């Protein structure tokens, strides 16, 4: 099974500042997908951003962007201009290209200071 590692249990950021969440994964496959999910206290899992392994260009969704380093098996999430509504648990997830099951990291709790 693939291993997804999030080494930061908690991160704190000042409102309007930038925070970067780290994620590394272990796989021997060449075809896979990576995701960042947000889980606010409501517990709803919200898809933030998706990256296909075959794409060299880093994905961007508004204030959210990733730094995908395929050789290093690293997939970090940058939240720019942080807002109070960004406070949540963030999960990094991996999916094999030949399957649809997700493997999740342990999660990082993001706190936004006003």
């Amino acid at each position: 099974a693939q291993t997804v590692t999030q080494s930061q249990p908690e991160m704190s950021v000042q409102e309007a500042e930038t925070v970067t969440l780290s994620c590394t994964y272990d796989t021997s496959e060449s075809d896979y997908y990576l995701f960042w999910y947000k889980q606010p206290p409501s517990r709803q899992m919200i898809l933030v951003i998706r990256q296909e392994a075959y794409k060299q260009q880093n994905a961007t969704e508004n204030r959210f962007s990733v730094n995908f380093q395929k050789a290093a098996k690293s997939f970090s999430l940058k939240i720019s201009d942080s807002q109070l509504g960004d406070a949540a648990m963030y999960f990094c997830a991996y999916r094999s290209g030949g399957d649809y099951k997700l493997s999740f990291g342990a999660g990082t709790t993001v706190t936004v200071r006003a």
Partner: protein
Amino acid sequence: SAVISQKPSRDICQRGTSLTIQCQVDSQVTMMFWYRQQPGQSLTLIATANQGSEATYESGFVIDKFPISRPNLTFSTLTVSNMSPEDSSIYLCSVPEGDSYNEQFFGPGTRLTVL
């Protein structure tokens, strides 16, 4: 994206009893997944619910404990049987969507507390 609902949203149950959680999707989907999120933990896949065939369980999860039904392409149930306090978790269903099913969306979850 598909609209996914779950019932109940939360429940408190006595040990030794069973609870059935429903997952309804507003469109037909081939696959549905059931995940467990223990308190303060990440999500772990329980099983894949297949329409017209037996569910496929992940290592550590068995059908006798977590029987799953998938009577049609929009609905699935997960039963947590003979519950113990260790079963206290959030249970979430999810479906793959998008082009080539490259994205996966989740229901709102069911928060289960076992006393």
